[in-house]
């Protein structure tokens, strides 16, 4: 009973894994930094294109259940992972690591991400998720400082524990229903019902760790702050996206509404409230991304009908969050790391364009114009929540948006404020050259965010969401 393999369908996986291997070979054979980065970037680009041309037929099937099954959003997810990897590569001009290993680990992680999007069974899903995460432990620990090591330890331990929880959940679910393929997942029957529901809950909790949902979030700020900035950018975008996709795979098939609702409410509220009190830039972004995870989780309460919204929101979010991190990378002096928010005072005068991009990102994260992408993201999830009868959760999201604006706007305003005692007009800051890969990433991300802002339908179409369907009125 050998499985038939449709290699055309597996193209994205081949591209991603091939990139990783190729990077390793180039590192060994050539060893030049530019060659390695070039290879990785080209590979990521090809990986980004692969899902577009790949066949969407499922393959590696056992009966009706397939391990590799392209859903409506699989291609988009793969593209996103590849694009984020590309962007992070662009930001990584100053990463304190051997380039070969760095690029290899990053592309390995990308491979994991691509797999998650297509995974058709729990084994593949969890292995993919681990492939996404495991290289990140290493990348986080790349800064050989106490903070770096601490953050790696934190990330690693919490991650391992949550993996164990997820695995236990999978085990219980398997014990209760005997199913490992996503398409075969069913809620347990009879005496097995509690077992199955605990299993599902544990899987959700274990995956929720990846998106840094409260109460599984504590690692995130410390880890982001300790990791090199590009890695932090990757963690808060790609890693989070992986978690969302994995969660969506489960929640779209099994009813987890109340659990997700609890997680979502806790996540957005705690994230926003704590973010109010942050004084360091990276930590602020970290907490804000915790809160954003709450918004992403929210539409998942609606099960299958919420997946599109969650993925759409996640897409808007990663674009904007990436811009924010890219701006920090662009604005930083060579030896600083994140730094106090106060140290960004008046930066807009020195670097108007990155500052403008930062405003775009933060306003988008807050869900306000000019960050139209963020606005539509919020509209999308509120649309879905109300459409599926979760009005109260929409209310919580709305209130949280208000709290969130408080710190977003404070942070954005700092960039335009004058330092104490100096009039803005007299402010003379040294010009900082921005390296071209950083600039390219930033511009690319900003262009994407703007395009998505004005034409969000592009994204919705990619997610297979072409027409608004009111559910309640029926």
């Amino acid at each position, binding site marked *: 009973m050998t499985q038939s393999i449709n290699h055309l369908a597996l193209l994205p996986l081949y591209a991603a894994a091939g990139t990783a291997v190729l990077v390793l070979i180039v590192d060994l054979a050539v060893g030049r930094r530019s060659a390695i980065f070039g290879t990785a970037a080209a590979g990521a680009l090809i990986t980004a294109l692969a899902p577009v041309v790949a066949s969407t037929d499922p393959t590696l099937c056992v009966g009706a259940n397939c391990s590799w099954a392209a859903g409506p959003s699989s291609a988009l997810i793969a593209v996103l992972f590849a694009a984020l990897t590309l962007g992070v590569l662009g930001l990584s001009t100053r990463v304190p690591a051997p380039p070969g290993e760095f690029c290899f680990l990053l592309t390995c992680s990308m491979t994991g991400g691509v797999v998650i999007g297509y995974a058709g069974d729990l084994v593949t899903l969890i292995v993919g998720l681990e492939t996404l995460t495991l290289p990140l432990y290493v990348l986080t620990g790349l800064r050989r400082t106490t903070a770096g090591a601490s953050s790696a330890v*934190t990330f690693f331990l919490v991650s391992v524990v949550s993996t164990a*929880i997820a695995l236990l959940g999978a085990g219980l679910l398997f014990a209760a229903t005997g199913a490992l393929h996503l398409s075969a997942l069913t809620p347990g029957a009879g005496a097995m019902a509690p077992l199955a529901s*605990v299993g599902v*809950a544990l899987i959700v*909790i274990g995956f929720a760790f990846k998106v840094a949902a409260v*109460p599984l979030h*504590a690692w995130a700020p410390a880890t982001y702050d300790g990791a090199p900035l590009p890695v932090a950018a990757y963690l808060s975008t790609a890693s989070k996206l992986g978690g969302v996709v994995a969660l969506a795979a489960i929640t779209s098939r099994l009813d987890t509404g109340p659990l997700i609702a*609890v997680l979502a409410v806790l996540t957005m509220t705690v994230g926003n409230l704590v973010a*109010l*009190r942050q004084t360091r830039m990276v930590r602020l972004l970290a907490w804000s991304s915790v809160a954003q995870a709450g918004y992403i989780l929210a539409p998942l309460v609606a099960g299958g009908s919420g997946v599109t919204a969650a993925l759409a929101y996640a897409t808007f979010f990663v674009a904007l969050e990436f811009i924010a991190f890219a701006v920090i990378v662009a604005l930083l002096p060579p030896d600083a790391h994140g730094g106090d928010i106060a140290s960004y005072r008046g930066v807009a005068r020195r670097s108007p364009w990155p500052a403008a991009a930062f405003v775009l990102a933060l306003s988008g994260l807050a869900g306000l114009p000019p960050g139209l992408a963020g606005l539509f993201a919020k509209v999308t999830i509120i649309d879905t929540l109300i459409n599926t009868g979760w009005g109260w959760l929409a209310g919580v999201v709305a209130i949280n948006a208000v709290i969130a604006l408080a710190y977003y706007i404070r942070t954005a305003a700092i960039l335009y404020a004058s330092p104490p005692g100096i009039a803005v007009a007299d402010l003379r800051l040294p010009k900082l050259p921005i390296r071209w890969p950083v600039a390219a990433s930033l511009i690319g991300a900003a262009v994407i965010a703007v395009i998505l802002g004005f034409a969000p339908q592009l994204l919705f179409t990619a997610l297979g969401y072409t027409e608004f369907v009111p559910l309640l009125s029926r």
Partner: protein
Amino acid sequence: MIAALPGVPLLLGLLGLLLSPADRAGRKRAAALGVTGAVLALALTVFLLVTTDDPEEIHLDWVRLGDLDVTLSFSAGPAALYVALAVTVVALAVQIYSIGYLHDDPRYAPYAAQISLFTGAMLLVVTAGDLILLLVGWEVMGVCSYLLIGHDRRLHEAPAAAVKAFLVTRVGDVGFLLGIALLGWSARSFRIADVLASDFGATTLTAGLLLILAGVAGKSAQFPLHTWLPDAMAGPTPISALIHAATMVAAGVYVVFRLYPLFAQSPTALATLGVMAAVTLLLGALSAMAQDDLKRVLAWSTVSQIGYMTGALAVGSPAAALFHLLTHAAFKALLFLAAGAVIHAVGTNYLSRMGGLRRVMPATFWSFVIGLGALAGLPPLAGFWSKENVLVAAAHATEGGEAVPAWTAWVVWIAALAGVLITAWYSTRLLLRAFFGPSRAYGPDGPDWEVGFDDARYDRPGVAHDPPRVMRWPVLVLAVPAALLGLAAFAPGFRTALELEQPHLDVAIALPMLLLVTGAGTAWWLWRAVPGADPVLALGRVQPVLANAFYLDAVQDRAIVRPVKALARAVKWTDERVVDGTVEGAGKTATGLGTLLSAAHRAALPRAAVAVLTGALLLGVVAAIYGASA
């Protein structure tokens, strides 16, 4: 054509406001504009009076709100035109008079413009054929009154008086607006012709009319909204003559006259009006007895005289009211302008600082004699005829059979008779104190010129003398109607215009004449008995009560002003502490929660592990229960 009557002065007034206030040329231009406006208005009025026999009417659509039409309607019957004539004549006199009176005032230009505006607004009230349009004129008058009262920058009580005048009338206007709204809505139209023709329910009608009466009381200084008028004397004297004696205060009377067909259907409204009139009449007269300020005597007498007009309306004789309105406009404008001349000459308002002016200011003295005589109702001066009409109408109404209840007529009649007595008394006192006896201008410490009591003057007055020509002529011109207007009652054209009855002198005039003589005689006797002393001292302990006008100002202050201020303070406190406090509190709570939560995260890794696993455990338990129940 009618529309131009208010339109021209309004336009010229607006133009005048644009003039630069400071420079010399601006002053000339301002004077020219002001006088031109008044002359044009007067010419138009005369032209209309002469040429039109039928009431001229104009209807233009103005604006439509929902199913309510507001129209630009003008209508001017002969009666309205006579009122307009009074207005324009007095306005012209005042404009000319002011050129001299304010000859060294740097803010003359806006002053003149505001008079023009006022004239236009008053003419608008007179000619308006739509309640909303009438309201426009009504309120613009109020604003002009406010601006002009507060004109004198050195008089520290002037701004307060201006505010008071506007606010008290505005309180009345609350009722006026509501009344108009009620009547207009019930009639589905604001056109006066439609409103008069429409059929109201008794309750609606009475409610609407009572509300309108509130506005009338405010504008015409009727009890209990009369308190502003004496204070309004802080304005320049020509303004007192025009606005606070001759025209604006009579506008209330005119409005009741205009809506009289409605009032005639509502005995309750008429009874209210009657009681109001009686109280005001006596209150004004009594208060006038004890004032030391020349202008305040005249102001209280105005209050009292308007009481006669409203009384006449209450007892069913709008014609008498209108007639008295016209004569009063003449003699009271005369009195004020003459008083202005006195004040201009001696530099003080206080009777206790005058005396003996008869010799140095003969023209002014004779003007005063005519004006006061008319005021007291001395035959054959104008006031005699018009007041006689009121008394006759009241006496007639006491016999019943009219719309108004007989008891109201009795009240009005008795009050009016008492008023004759008192008016004669204080008129005599005024004349004697100001023009007879020795001069009291020099106190023990030399000339007693007090800055701040001669409005509109920036240099010390010299020796008292008759006013310059530009001020004298208006006074003299006004003396003519003050003396002779009463005889117009014998002119048939005038009589039919006002629907006045043929005057007939019979025994009924004996009683008022007797009272008049008694009043004047008593005053004279008291003055003679103790030379140099104020006759009012004879009243003893009643005198301060009268001088303070029964302390109604204090009552108003305690009962309304202070509570409102206290309420405002409380509301502001609530708004800042409770309403805004809630908002700020919400923000603070969020920040506090954030601090708390971030403190909770300032911990070592194991705490995180505990949190993760505890969370998993709890959520797992919940899920188990949920799964079991599902």
